[in-house]
């Protein structure tokens, strides 16, 4: 039984701040067998062609989250992605593009600065603060029903690979944004009956860059390497806010306005959303920002066209409700 083989071109992003003024792309042609992963292919290049090629990997088994990078434009784990499966995604036949993740500073080639993720975990209190006193730890276990466990079970799958962070459209507008993985972690903690700091966490989530900033673009859900239903988690923390009556925030009103807009025209009326969420004074205080946006030609259009298939949107909305 011999395996299928093929010449594949890898077009790889290169940038070493020590020597390069600008990033560039290197091309490598190698012969690849069916069944080989992207990681094994670039390891081959590193071992045999160019040992300066720089990227992270560790477990090689899809569990440590080190090897995330963009393959043909989409963030994924190099170690679980088959070269063969990427061929249909190539813009040019048999040319696979390898690039670092988005929304991170680049250290070198595919290696990115990961500390902002950790700072966010810290900011949003992404841990359980146990009810049990220090001296009583370890004496007995909590009794936790299968039903409670199921609520956050999927969220504990997250390996902090950053693929969702890299694909998130809101992250691209603001690096301050909590990020999808941050929201997922927050949800996992809020739903854990062993934790005692939900109030504090919800408070931070309710602030700017928190749970209300998500634009529902679903890119994180599509990107998640563990297929975690991140949107359920985002909805979950928001529902928690609704339940707790946290109405007194910009975000809440924004989310409310947002759902109203989707219901009526199927698209955001961005230019009026500011008025409805900030109140008229708040909206005026945003004027300098709006002027800047106008200057850069990014002012949201004032007239909103109802998008085709609006009925469909309404139906989806009813389902979510």
């Amino acid at each position, binding site marked *: 039984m011999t395996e299928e083989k093929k010449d594949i071109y890898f077009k790889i992003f290169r940038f070493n701040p020590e020597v390069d003024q600008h990033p560039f792309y290197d091309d490598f042609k190698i012969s690849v067998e069916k069944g080989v992963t992207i990681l094994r292919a670039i390891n081959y290049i590193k071992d045999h062609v160019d040992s300066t090629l720089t990227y992270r990997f560790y477990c090689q088994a899809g569990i440590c989250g080190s090897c995330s990078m963009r393959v043909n434009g989409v963030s994924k784990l190099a170690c679980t992605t088959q070269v063969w499966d990427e061929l249909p995604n190539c813009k040019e036949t048999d040319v696979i593009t390898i690039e670092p993740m988005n929304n991170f500073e680049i250290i*070198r080639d595919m290696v990115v600065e990961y500390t902002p993720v950790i700072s966010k975990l810290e900011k949003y209190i992404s841990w359980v603060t146990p009810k049990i006193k220090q001296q009583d730890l370890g004496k007995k276990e909590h009794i936790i029903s299968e039903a409670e466990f199921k609520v956050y079970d999927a969220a504990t799958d997250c390996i902090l690979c950053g693929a969702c962070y890299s694909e998130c459209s809101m992250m691209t507008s603001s690096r301050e944004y909590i990020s999808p993985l941050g929201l997922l972690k927050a949800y996992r903690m809020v739903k854990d009956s062993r934790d005692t700091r939900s109030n504090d966490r919800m408070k931070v989530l309710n602030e700017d860059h928190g749970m209300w900033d998500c634009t529902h673009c679903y890119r994180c859900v599509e990107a998640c390497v563990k297929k975690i239903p991140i949107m359920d988690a985002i909805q979950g923390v928001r529902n928690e806010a609704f339940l707790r009556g946290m109405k007194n925030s910009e975000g809440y009103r924004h989310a409310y306005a947002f759902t109203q807009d989707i219901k009526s025209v199927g698209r955001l009326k961005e230019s009026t959303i500011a008025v409805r969420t900030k109140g008229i004074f708040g909206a005026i205080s945003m004027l300098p920002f709006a002027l800047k946006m106008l200057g850069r030609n990014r002012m949201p259009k004032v007239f909103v066209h109802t998008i085709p298939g609006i009925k469909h949107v309404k139906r989806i909305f009813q389902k979510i409700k």
Partner: protein
Amino acid sequence: MQPYDIIIVGAGGGGMYAAMEALQTNPKLKIAVVSKVYPTRSHTSAAQGGVNAALANRHKDDTIDLHIFDTIKGSDYLADQDAATILCEMAPYVVRELENLGAPFSRLEDGTIAQRPFGGAQKYRCCYCADRTGHTILTTLFEQCLRQGVHFLSEYYLLSLEHDGQKAQGVVVMNMQTGKIEALPARSVILATGGYAKMYWQKSSNAAGSTGDGIAAALRAGLAVEDMEFVQFHPTGLRKSGLLISEGARGEGGYLVNNKGERFMKTYAPEKMELGPRDLVSRSIEIEINEGRGFDSDAGQYMHLDLRHLGADLILERLPQIRMLAIDFEGVDPIKEPIPIRPTAHYSMGGIDANNDGATAIQGIYAVGECSCISVHGANRLGGNSLLDILVFGKLAGRHAAQLAPSLNPGAISTSAVEKSLKEIEGYSHHDRTERYGELRDELGKTLGANAGIYRTKKKLEKGVEDIMAIKERFKNVRVNDSSAVFNTNLFQVLELKNMIALAETVARGALAREESRGSHSREDFPVRDDEKWHKHSIFHMNEKGDITLSTKPVTMGKYPLQARTY
């Protein structure tokens, strides 16, 4: 620079538990955790099956004593019985503590922590979070370290361990992002750098960085390392990559089947069948293959692990990760087809000689987790006992170091220590050098697999030692082609290779010397256990010239006398 009170090298389960416990013991201490990868990348994340603790949630008649006995028997009576006792006694405590701190253990119907059967255990004792126990434990520990404000130095590489012959002085590290070499003075150092089973390279389930760096640093610093010849081969690695299919798959009822369609374990362990201990199951597979009952493929001979009879529901619920591994790396969906498997190097029983607090012969230097040999696993570790090992001894060492550190006054790290590292590293990029890293690494893995693998003989091991010495010689001429200071992965690969070569020599020499078969160490020319001559630990030292010397140390016995080990 003010010395740290404690520097922990390694942010796996062992290192992070030590950090957490040290800060709880004394919150005023200045502590840092150094790791060559971000903490949650550590290899602990790969543990699938679970962690043993006699909670008696599932089998009400399980006891700590039974756990101790299983551990000692599993070790083929080479474990130190006092250490094994501490391990099992503390097990319920650490598992419950982790649970209290948020670890998402799977649950039984009554809401208590779920337990599954695991190889070599008489009872259902293995606590699990689906089939990603290590990942969830590591994540929980990281979260708790963040809660306590543990200071992490992530992507710092340990270059050397420093002491003055009596007391710890600290470590020399390289900041991987800048290439800067730094001396970090410390009153105490806890090594938690993980195992060395990656030296078998393609025939290993381990992460790329399980290269024994801490053990090699300790060896070079004159410390004793112990029982290095004992390397556990896991029976069920994936055929092509060596990646692991956890024992959980057999724990849930998977069958091992040969090319005749027979569950061949009935010949070797009629009672325990597929759930015999790992060394036995691995050897059984080798015998089946050698006798022509394996399946053939380009990637070598293999066996089938058949889960189909378990049904899609059970596979999806309890073994989801394993299913994805089989799909991603073999293109096989275990719901529909058997998984092609072969034995793979998996766990290193040997490591830095340490006592029951994790302390070494040098005051203030500790070793815990897979890089240590305390010794609780003896000649063969039981599945589910090494996560336990890292937790229990991580905790004990963290506590001990926190209590001791304030009273220690380390001398300064000599500037020559830093200069030595600098010189070595500059040397690697000299243009006269011609040896290629990848070639040496592959040859090392191959000779180890062929000559110091599951079945060993004098002849093979002599060849192994000879090959390793030749590779060691060629390594002097190895070239780092990347001359950049920024994240020079080529350099770290070479440094890791240096460590693997140093430890490979101890593995092969230890195996050659030990003329008996015990646990994971099977000599075809000495097929039985020889308690008279070899019921003792092997001890290795490196002398100033870099040569390895061998000696032995008695095994600490206790309640359980030597017995034949049958399953």
